[in-house]
């Protein structure tokens, strides 16, 4: 469970192999029924919701000190993730596994290596917890954005079920230690890697041909706002809810909306952009954005200016921004090309759409690279959004305001977790 590496002079490759063997041994030694595993994992997540939990505080601290998020933003993002990680959700997920009912036989999962990444809690926690739920042991390399977070999660599990926690180990090493990454995957049947496309490609080159590497590419999300959602009502407006989805995790996740398609013409889009800007300004007061490094700041600047240049010449375009470009909302002019890629860091565009064809033209470049579509509107508008999500290849249609709380079983690529994706299909009996 420790994250600290042994001194350099120790043969770290041998140490990693020894650790993998030790984990494998622990799997053989004692059986923990799947129902117990699910209960333990659900209990950990339940305790994390308690503000007094020391592990919760440590995770938020990791997101603040290591990932650079503001404390309130880190806590809000963690809570958004936890919303779907209830004990019931863990039990439901476990129900997909054989053995839960005492009838099937549990598959031998073995030790699963993970390269963890991202600045969000889920990609640091779930690969380990899912492996444990499935009956395997997890050996993970912590990511550089929140290096302490996975070890804290394992420590929290030890507090609930020490036997299960002994099946997980987390280590850290620099990205350029290819020998260690190679050793991590050495002999593994399957492993996972989170990170950018370049990182995934680099890891793939280190993984043996017999190992199935599950590397997840970048994805983005959008919101579809129906005309009915623009009508003023009591309660939180669609724009305010969308602002929350954007601000959570500082828009660093694949579920963070980077653009909003607004039905009802350009005036409606401009009005919605104003409301969204107000919502983002409000969120900035509550969940401040992290300080940006120069490269990220340049990306935000370029995104802002791409709209500002058009807005300087055309009245139907607009750019709205917070102090210090704390957030940026851009409205492209009519007839322009597709909106630019959003650099994250609370930047998004708002585009008017008057029909399905226009919506497809606007987001067509992200077809096959869309994680989810948020929707605000009536039943008919939700049907339109569903058709768009289907066309984009997005596997999630979520209410605006809940985009950052995917079901525990949701997967970016739409595949159903656990048994749905057995790596090796069972051999059918030969007649």
């Amino acid at each position, binding site marked *: 469970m420790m994250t600290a590496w042994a001194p350099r002079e120790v043969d770290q490759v041998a140490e990693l192999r020894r650790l993998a063997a030790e984990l494998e041994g622990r799997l053989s030694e004692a059986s923990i029924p799947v129902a117990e595993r699910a209960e333990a994992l659900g209990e950990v997540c339940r305790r994390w919701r308690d503000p007094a939990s020391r592990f919760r505080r440590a995770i938020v601290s990791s997101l603040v000190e290591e990932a650079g998020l503001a404390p309130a933003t880190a806590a809000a993002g963690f809570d958004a993730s936890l919303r779907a990680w209830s004990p019931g959700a863990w039990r439901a997920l476990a129900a997909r596994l054989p053995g839960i009912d005492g009838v099937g036989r549990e598959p031998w999962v*073995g030790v699963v290596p993970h390269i963890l990444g991202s600045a969000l809690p889920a990609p640091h926690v779930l690969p380990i917890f899912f492996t444990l739920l499935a*009956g*395997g042991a997890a050996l993970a390399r912590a990511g550089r954005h929140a290096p302490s977070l996975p070890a804290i999660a394992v420590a929290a599990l030890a507090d609930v079920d020490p036997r299960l926690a002994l099946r997980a180990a987390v280590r850290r090493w620099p990205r350029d230690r290819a020998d260690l990454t190679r050793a991590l995957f050495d002999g593994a049947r399957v492993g996972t890697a989170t990170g950018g496309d370049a990182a995934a490609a680099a890891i793939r080159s280190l993984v043996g041909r017999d190992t199935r590497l599950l590397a997840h590419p970048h994805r983005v999300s959008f919101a579809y706002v129906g005309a009915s959602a623009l009508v003023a009502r009591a309660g939180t407006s669609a724009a305010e809810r969308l602002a929350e989805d954007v601000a959570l995790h500082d828009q660093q996740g*694949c579920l963070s909306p980077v653009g909003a398609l607004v039905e009802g013409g350009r005036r409606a889009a401009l009005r919605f952009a104003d409301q969204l800007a107000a919502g983002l300004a409000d969120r900035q007061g509550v969940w401040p954005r992290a300080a940006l490094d120069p490269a990220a700041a*340049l990306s935000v600047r370029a995104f802002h200016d791409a709209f500002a240049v058009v807005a*300087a*010449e055309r009245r139907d375009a607009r750019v709205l921004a917070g102090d210090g470009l704390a957030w940026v909302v851009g409205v492209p002019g009519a007839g322009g*090309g597709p909106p630019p890629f959003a650099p994250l860091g609370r930047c998004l565009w708002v585009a008017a759409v008057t029909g399905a064809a226009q919506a497809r033209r606007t987001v067509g470049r992200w077809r096959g690279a869309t994680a989810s579509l948020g929707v605000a509107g009536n039943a008919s508008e939700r049907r339109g959004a569903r058709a768009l999500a289907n066309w984009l290849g997005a596997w999630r249609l979520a209410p605006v305001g809940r985009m950052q709380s995917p079901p525990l079983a949701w997967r970016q690529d739409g595949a159903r977790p656990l048994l749905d*994706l057995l790596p090796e299909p069972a051999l059918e009996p030969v007649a």
Partner: protein
Amino acid sequence: MRVPAARTLEAGRLREARGLDARLSEAIRRGWDAPLSEAEVDELARDLFAHQWRHCRTARAWWRSRGVAGASVRGWRDVPGLPVSAYKTTRVAAFPRSGHAERPRFRSSGTTVGARSRVHLENVDLYAAALVPAFRRHALPDCDRMRLLFLSAPPARAPQSSLAHMFGVLSETCGAPGSAFLSAGDVPDIDALAAALGEAEAGAEPVFLLGAAFAFVHALDGLRARGASFRTPRGSRLFQTGGFKGRSREVTPDGLLDAYEEILGIPPDRVINEYGMAELASQFYARADGRYSAPPWVRWRVLDPIGLGLAAAGEPGVLAIWDLANRSHCFALLTEDLAVARGSTFELVGRVAGSEPRGCSLDADVAAVTGAAT
């Protein structure tokens, strides 16, 4: 007889443009021998600003939106750089559309994914005037002409490439017999390159290899694949420009320098780095230390990307450039490149992201971790 107002206006614009071109050509001709004083740069900048305010709609709209108008401009520092993304979405030109189909138009190389810039030029005279003396000073200070081997398509095959145009001008003005374009497209002709290098090696005539960094990556891969390496004669050198992210496998700058020496026999002190872009008429040059310097008619600053004030000393920021040779469109540009100021030079440290969809992946996949039953 009454002359149509539009024609009168255009005649006036043309007179003004020609006058400015003449003054700018003279300023460039003075070069490093009698460099422009700060007051002279400011005066030219004021006049360029006034000209582009009158004739370049996009620049005018941008400056107006930044609260800048004629009277407030005392020199180049007062003119906000137009974001280079403007060239992707609108026509940035200080001359009318009529007849512009015949005028030179460059498109950015698209080293990053996404829309490409379109740069409209009224003529290429200032471009050539700025190009040659800077190239001679930094890349050819010891001779008048050399055998230039371009890892690029010839200008006729790539009429919208500012790099191909640049190489065409250099071929005419600085190329010795045997100079050649060794590529039909992005990928160099390895056979032709190997033959030219072998010939140079045998004949003891130094060669000058020029190309985009990604073209060199392809060339080195090709030569390496056939186990070829050369000891190019003393005095041989190499000019590389641009990035190669997204164009081929990525290689570190040091890795490239090592390969130049190992496969081409060109040591790091004979490698010249150029920084330019389709939106600029002038170029910056650096040696192996990566510190770029500007010609005397160009000014630059490293700005804090958020507030656009001067970046703190030693801190990275966005590079803003005032290129007096950019008479045809906009002389004040805000690039998408990240730089650090080092005295009178700057180092490039990155460029804007956002060329690909971004967003973390919710990696956790239980499913795939379940294995076959034992």
